[in-house]
């Protein structure tokens, strides 16, 4: 679904992420881990198009399975190609109501109403908050809203930056099973950045560890993965 080849990116002229290569297959969940400041968010921002690529390529699969380079494609058009992004930090459109936050992305889609309803069933807490201004929601409510908003776009590739931050434990579990279910049922690949090893290794099939902006280790989750990850992260 997504191929990163020797990707280097950063802010201004300073690279933060160096020479990263990463593959996410169809219907696969891949976790990226690493210390604070390792460059995880930076990597994701380049993938979704918020910061330019310095060198290397980002390749996205077309529906027919062939790959195309999308290095220069604006962020909003990557969404049309099937990417959805949940940024770090419980971001929402603070001046819109929660309902408008959802309608905003449903606008222009067929069955927009049904798409919204599906997500409201997934996050029932949001139902009662639809008319509240999103900027007034609690942190966890905003994060749930952000994930719902991403899922409404029916993505083929879901990019999550610490999605469980600030969310209550039982909803975290719900999100985890959603990710696993969607990937298993087909049609969704996930690039997941997560500090919680427990959550990440349970949801993902493979992992990569970033250290100082470089890939320090990759592998399949499963027995011994925890140790390998911790070892790769150790400085």
């Amino acid at each position, binding site marked *: 679904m997504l191929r990163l080849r020797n990707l280097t990116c950063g802010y201004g002229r300073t690279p933060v992420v160096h020479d990263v290569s990463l593959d996410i297959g169809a219907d696969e969940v891949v976790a990226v881990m690493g210390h604070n400041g390792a460059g995880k968010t930076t990597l994701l921002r380049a993938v979704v198009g918020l910061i330019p690529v310095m060198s290397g390529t980002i390749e996205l699969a077309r529906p027919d399975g062939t790959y195309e380079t999308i290095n220069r494609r604006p962020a909003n058009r990557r969404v049309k190609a099937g990417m959805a992004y949940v940024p770090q*930090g419980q971001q929402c459109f603070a001046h819109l109501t929660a309902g408008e936050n959802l309608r905003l992305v449903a606008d222009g889609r067929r069955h927009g109403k049904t798409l919204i309803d599906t997500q409201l069933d997934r996050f029932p807490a949001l139902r009662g908050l639809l008319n509240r201004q999103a900027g007034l929601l*609690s942190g966890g409510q905003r994060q749930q809203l952000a994930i719902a908003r991403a899922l409404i776009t029916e993505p083929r590739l879901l990019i999550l930056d610490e999605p469980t931050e600030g969310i209550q434990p039982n*909803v975290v579990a719900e999100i985890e099973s959603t990710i696993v279910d969607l990937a298993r049922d087909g049609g969704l690949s996930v690039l997941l950045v997560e*500090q919680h090893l*427990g959550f990440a290794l349970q949801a993902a099939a493979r992992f990569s560890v970033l250290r100082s902006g470089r890939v320090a280790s990759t592998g399949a989750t499963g027995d011994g993965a925890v140790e390998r990850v911790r070892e790769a992260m150790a400085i």
Partner: protein
Amino acid sequence: MSTTALTCKNIEVDFDGFKAVNGVDLTLDRGEVHFLIGPNGAGKTTLVDAITGLARYTGSVTKDTAGKGAVELRGKKVHHIARAGIGRTFQTATVFENLTVAQNLDIAAGAGRSPWTLLRRRAHLPANVTAVIEQIGLHEHADTPAGILAHGQKQWLEIGMLLVGDADVLLLDEPIAGMGADERETTGRLLHDIAATRAVAVVEHDMDFMRAFASRVTVLHAGTVLAAGTVDDVSNDPRVQEVYLGTTHTESDMEPADAATA
């Protein structure tokens, strides 16, 4: 030395008819790390907002200072509450990015300085600042602009800023959000150090972290106190499991995560 530092009585916060906090009583004692948990939207942040003067409320919040008696905080301005010794952090660390670590701490230490001191240059760092830099582990970064610190370091700096400001009630809203396992560990220990002489309240959703470091837990739900007590008390409370911890997860499900943080 478990003396009461802060007493909240019957706090109610009303947003145009919606009661985000609805009659909460809470006491924070020195020497404890008091965890505040509860579902998203339960009113935890709002309660902290109320105590620190950001949200209007009814009820009463009193600060107890040894030898000085109790002071009512309701109705005071934000900076007066801060000077009364109540310090808080926000979920996203807000440090002064253009100033160095030392300058950040020096400012935090100086709320009571005279105009005359303010108008002169800083000759050397105050002793409590140097001590705190050490305590939060940033001694190597004293002259680094705070803007380029790593995420976790900023959060430690923020806690450090409360310490040099002589806060003896610390209200920390999700202080380990976005931190890696090692950093959580370090932060937890830091909180215990700090709590020796102060009251520390922590809002968190990370149950492993809570289990590892909480002395006492209060669970909020829909603006009211649902349960309070030790970690075991609340973890085993079926109501807490239902609205918060989730019934689909058993202890064993959480095992890998435990292993990761322990």
